[in-house]
């Protein structure tokens, strides 16, 4: 690969550093790459704090960003994701590009007051996104 890179470099016309960085950009991951973003809400914003006693604040997080063309190991994506990307690029652009979505979650414990006045502590599955993937 070093020899190939040397050959590539010979082919590349002697250019200012700026174009060089432009040239390498196509090999980099997209700027706004798919990743986990913070989002924090309090149940009082939703006006649910009268029946949700705890927690006061809740960070569900979310996934946002572009999926790079070669997503294999970085996102734990199945091979299907690359196939879908190829379909989008080469065959039919109405097929959507792979999307940036949550891959793993963590649970949340909630303390609420029931309509009959009883109190319940409950642990809900999949309430906080902890990892993103491209699918």
């Amino acid at each position, binding site marked *: 690969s070093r020899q190939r890179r040397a050959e590539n470099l010979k082919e590349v016309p002697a250019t200012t550093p700026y174009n060089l960085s432009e040239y390498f950009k196509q090999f980099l991951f997209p700027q706004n790459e798919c990743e986990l973003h913070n989002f924090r809400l309090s149940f009082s914003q939703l006006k649910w704090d009268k029946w949700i006693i705890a927690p006061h604040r809740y960070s569900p997080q979310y996934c946002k960003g572009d999926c790079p063309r070669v997503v294999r190991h970085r996102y734990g994506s199945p091979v299907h994701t690359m196939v879908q990307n190829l379909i989008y690029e080469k065959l039919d652009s109405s097929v959507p590009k792979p999307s940036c979505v949550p891959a793993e979650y963590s649970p949340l414990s909630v303390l609420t007051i029931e309509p009959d006045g009883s*109190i319940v502590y409950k642990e*809900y599955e999949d309430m906080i996104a902890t990892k993103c993937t491209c699918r």
Partner: protein
Amino acid sequence: SPRTRGRAAADRASGLLVAPEDSSELNPLLRLPKGVRRSYALLPPLLKVLADRGPQNWQSEAPRLRPDSRALRYMKRLYKMSATKEGIPKATKSHLYNTVRLFTPCSECKHRLRDLTKGDVHSVDLLFNLDRVTALEYLLKSVLLYSFDTSVPISPSLACMCHLSVKEQDSSGQVCPSVSHSIAFSLHLEVRKRKWVEIDVTSFLQPLIATKRRNIHMAVNFTCLMGDAQHNTKLENPLNMALVPPSLLLYLNDTSEQAYHRWNSLRHTRKNPGRPRQRISPWDDPMGDIGKETSQGKRA
């Protein structure tokens, strides 16, 4: 998968992630017909559960009874022991439950005070309505939770005899005088050290809760002597002044899809994110396999 697709569409349509005025940008397929309240029909079950009790439904439900302040204090304390500040469940060995319900007795119970001299100090008739317990919630432990009114001076330690009996309702719906079964046991209370006394009634209530009984009618008689049993002196202060009618605490394992199952989630999602998780069946003893090595390593 259909489930996540449903959820992703529901999140978009639910207005939780998209401000209401943006709903015009929603894919026309996702825009709800005028009559249907926004997003309710599309919410995944969990958000439906949460939204059900949201304020917009609050008024439409039957008037909400305010919870007992002592009970609320106890449950906040239980929350702090069970979850971190951010609300993440703590993974402690003893923490088998994923649901804890606290019921305060219905208001129509009667407080019957017997004469102090006869030694039968405190007797109370309790009726608990368990409508909120779902069909997928299985009982792990049940506790009668007594709290003491600390403003009433009371002997620092008490030796008590407690007599519990459950009343059957015959077909006519009247509470007949006969008692289905009862239990008596002694307990030693160190009052000064604690505000709460938990009386484990699991084996006593298990048959009733297992048959999904909606109402549990029980009578609790306390006969307490001051100091420890050796002195056997009569009680100075009426116990009932200090004993607040107990709450019923149910530690449950919710086997529904949206509840968190620590035994399964950790093992199955890490290895194969796509593989559907096997749920622990309510008849398996979640503690039964812990610590047992099998050929494939520790079983969930």
